[in-house]
């Protein structure tokens, strides 16, 4: 289905925000200013955006350790996120969560998650809530090719089928879990989607570096799930452009692999080529978006750097609502 100019521009912008957010963090992290483990989403933007462009705040998503892209695509505030990653008390989570634990319940973003595989059952719960409400809302869980081996992911798929929960299992196969290849760690002779299918749900597959493929596939998937046909799963083939976490020397990559995927599998480049080729958008307007986004990220970094730091008293706040 043809997207409007506005929708195209918004999708591009969303992907670009994620890309620049991550590319900037990659640089900033080397300065030592940012604490903790950070896992960057660069390269996978088309998945987060292609999925979340179909959702509103009442639809829920739950993310992973590599969560920035999902958060941004679902509408989390760029400044609030940057401040969180900087550990400021003005951050989305007051500096208590950091990169791996960003959440914004009001946006339907139920949290990045440091525990691989933990998100899937939580999404089933959110989907069961949507089922009770009966408004055709869904819950979506993002999982990696590594997370798809965790028992919780399997249990969640079965529970979703049994309860006919409106839940979508989005598998982002970027071929690596930390330093291990998907061909080793996922035993199946076929693919991740086939394994999901064996649990009794309908599955789809698409190129995760092609925004249009993701978006179009998700249209079908969501039509199926919102209509009350139970859960579904999608496997997107995608690429991560950086290491598993910042600091990873990536010696497990093939020769020239990083250059090749940046060259041929870059969702932003592919998007631009496609929309300009089809005459839907021009390079100039995309360049304008690029410039604007760069400015936004620059401003976010400056704001994060200047933001208020938390204090020792903050440690004790917010454990319980009432204790």
């Amino acid at each position, binding site marked *: 289905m043809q997207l409007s100019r506005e929708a195209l521009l918004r999708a591009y912008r969303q992907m670009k925000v994620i890309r620049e957010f991550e590319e900037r963090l990659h640089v900033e992290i080397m300065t030592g200013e940012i604490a903790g483990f950070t896992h960057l989403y660069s390269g996978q933007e088309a998945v987060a955006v292609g999925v979340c462009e179909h959702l509103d705040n009442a639809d829920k998503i739950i993310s992973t350790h590599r969560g920035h892209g999902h958060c941004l695509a679902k509408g989390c505030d760029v400044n609030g996120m940057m401040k969180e990653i900087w550990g400021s008390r003005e951050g989305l989570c007051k500096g208590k969560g950091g990169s791996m634990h960003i959440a914004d319940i009001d946006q339907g973003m139920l949290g990045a998650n440091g525990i691989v595989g933990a998100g899937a059952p939580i999404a089933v719960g959110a989907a069961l*809530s949507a089922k009770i409400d009966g408004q055709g809302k869904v819950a979506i869980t993002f999982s990696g090719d590594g997370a798809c081996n965790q028992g*919780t992911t399997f249990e969640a798929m079965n529970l979703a089928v049994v309860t006919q929960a409106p839940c979508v299992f989005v598998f982002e196969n970027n071929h690596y879990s930390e330093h291990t290849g998907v061909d080793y760690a996922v035993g199946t002779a076929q693919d991740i989607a086939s394994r999901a299918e064996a649990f009794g749900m309908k599955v789809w597959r698409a190129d995760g570096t092609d925004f249009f493929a993701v978006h179009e596939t998700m249209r079908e998937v969501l039509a199926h799930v919102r209509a009350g046909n139970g859960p579904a799963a999608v496997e997107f083939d995608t690429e991560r452009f950086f290491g598993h976490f910042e600091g990873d020397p990536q010696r497990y990559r093939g020769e020239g692999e990083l250059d090749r995927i940046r060259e041929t599998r870059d969702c932003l480049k592919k998007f631009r080529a496609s929309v300009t080729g089809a005459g839907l958008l021009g390079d100039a307007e995309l360049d304008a978006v690029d410039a604007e986004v760069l400015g936004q990220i620059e401003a976010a970094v400056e704001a994060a750097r200047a933001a208020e730091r938390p204090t020792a008293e903050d440690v004790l706040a917010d454990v319980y609502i009432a204790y």
Partner: protein
Amino acid sequence: MSKMMYRDAVLSTIAEEMENDPSVVVLGEDVVGGMGTPGGPEAIGGIWSTSTGLFGKFGKDRVIDTPISESAIIGAAAGLALAGKRPIAELMFADFIGVSLDQIWNQIGKFRYMFGGKTRCPAVIRMAYGAGYNAAAQHSQSVHQILTGMPGLKVVMPSTPADVKGLLRTAIRDDDPVIFLEHKALYGVSGEVPDDPGFTIPFGHARLSRAGQDVTIVSSGLLLGFCEVVADKLAAEGIGCDVVDLRTTSPLDEETILDSVEVTGRLVVVDEAPPRCGLAADICALVAGKAFASLKAPPQAVTPPHTPIPFARELESAYLPSVDKIEAAVRKVLAWR
């Protein structure tokens, strides 16, 4: 007041809260029972009879029977709670926190804090715990000591039907995650329960079930009753025991404990968990740290030994704290020096 069994206090409270609040949802294994069988839904409910009839009343969206997948059960409760519902998840046995701990400890217990205080996670996780049924090492354990040590969780251990009623209402209405521990050996015990639909018991308020001046006995759950037996026996000899029923181990009512020890100067903590890093040690340390000057004798813990729970009747009885062991401990602190 009505007389009812501990298990019926659980069931009736859940039913009432479901009636009052459409966001309350129940899930767990066999909470309906009979799903997918010739007998059909509710042919038989769960093994503790704590959800009987709920499916018929509230339907399949709010009474969710699950496969044997405890991580998914607790995870689903987490998601329901984040999405605005008030799930009550049932673990058939407390021992099954082993297969679902991450969702309890690293998810439900941490959301509010990790997410900067803006997230409510009003999930209740009920579980049957405790020994006395010869169910051996994997079906008899106490887990409150493990869960009390986990910030973000509230932990409730009612010892009477009335406390079940008052504390479970509070748990379901609480905006924080609550672990609700039901002792298997108490399910069949009857007691008077207030009829007032507004009756609740706040967390962090212990109950003084016996009052005396000579020694403080702290306990909860099944063993509370054992302590009462000892207190009554000693009362006949003119020895007065304060028996403190903790009701909730997190939050802990430090004040009631410390106030009592300030008077008695002597403490016995009776707990069903293993001794190391357990609740008994926790409370002995509390008192030693904060009521040191009042203490006339070393704080005494009565717990099982540091072993798994054995099967045979003779072994399980020897394993568990008994009235005799409690009495001996009390006499020991009374005799000190």
